[in-house]
């Protein structure tokens, strides 16, 4: 007699292999972005089109920099996983794997580039005020 529950037999057997983890991640990041995105749009939109010195002054402000960093860190993971869902619907086999690796990589590159730009702007702001 095997002491395996029905639940245990079902674990890992869904189409995803990871249960509801993906969906739950999208829920968490989605709620986070619901708060971040309006702040980001305001900060980014009102900095766009200004001279560089003003852009640096605005975006190196702690609140602005943290909101932009969080929006990209959370947003890019949300994007990568969302794009993964789309890819898994429309592509199969090796094509699917290549595309998923591509969007994951793209999302990390964009996050890293954002953090680099923000960090450099903070330093440029410090040097300008010194």
């Amino acid at each position, binding site marked *: 007699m095997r002491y395996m529950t029905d639940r245990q037999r079902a674990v890992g057997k869904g189409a995803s292999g990871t249960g509801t983890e993906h969906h739950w991640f999208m*829920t968490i990041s*989605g*709620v986070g*972005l*619901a708060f971040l*995105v309006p702040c980001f*749009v*305001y900060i*980014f*939109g*009102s900095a*766009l*089109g200004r001279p*560089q010195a003003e*852009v*640096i002054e605005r*975006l190196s402000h702690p609140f602005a920099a943290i909101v*932009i960093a969080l929006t*990209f860190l959370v*947003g*890019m993971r949300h*994007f990568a996983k*969302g*794009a993964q*869902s*789309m890819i898994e*619907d*429309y*592509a*199969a086999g090796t094509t699917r794997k290549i595309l998923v690796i591509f*969007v994951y990589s*793209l999302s990390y590159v*964009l996050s890293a*580039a*954002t953090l*680099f*730009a*923000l960090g*450099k*702007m903070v330093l*440029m702001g410090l040097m300008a005020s010194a």
Partner: protein
Amino acid sequence: MAETKRVERPLSPFMIGQYYRPQMTSMSSILTRITGNALAVSAILAVWWLLAAASDEDYFNSINWLMTSFIGDLIFTLSALGLWYHYLAGLRHLYFDAGKGLEIETAEKLGWACMIGSVVLTLLTIIIV
């Protein structure tokens, strides 16, 4: 070794096209996916501009000119529209996930709310920001 028999199963797009009548529920759903993935382009442009702002002045000025040109304005306005649509559709998704608003009539109304709401929010963004 047992050979697994390959079965050609249809992927998702078989739902669209001649086999499936466009409905508010399906269209508002697919639009969420389209806007979400199209926002990758907006993200790339935004990061490009951020990197330019952290670069030398001449480079920033040329990129800034591009981003605030007519084409730049058009792309960022469309980005805002896509962003707000995805935003509202995402909120609708959270509401659906709570098991609410799933009656066809309500779901259709929420679909219209997302579409009209995204236009309103885009106009507000243009006015305020």
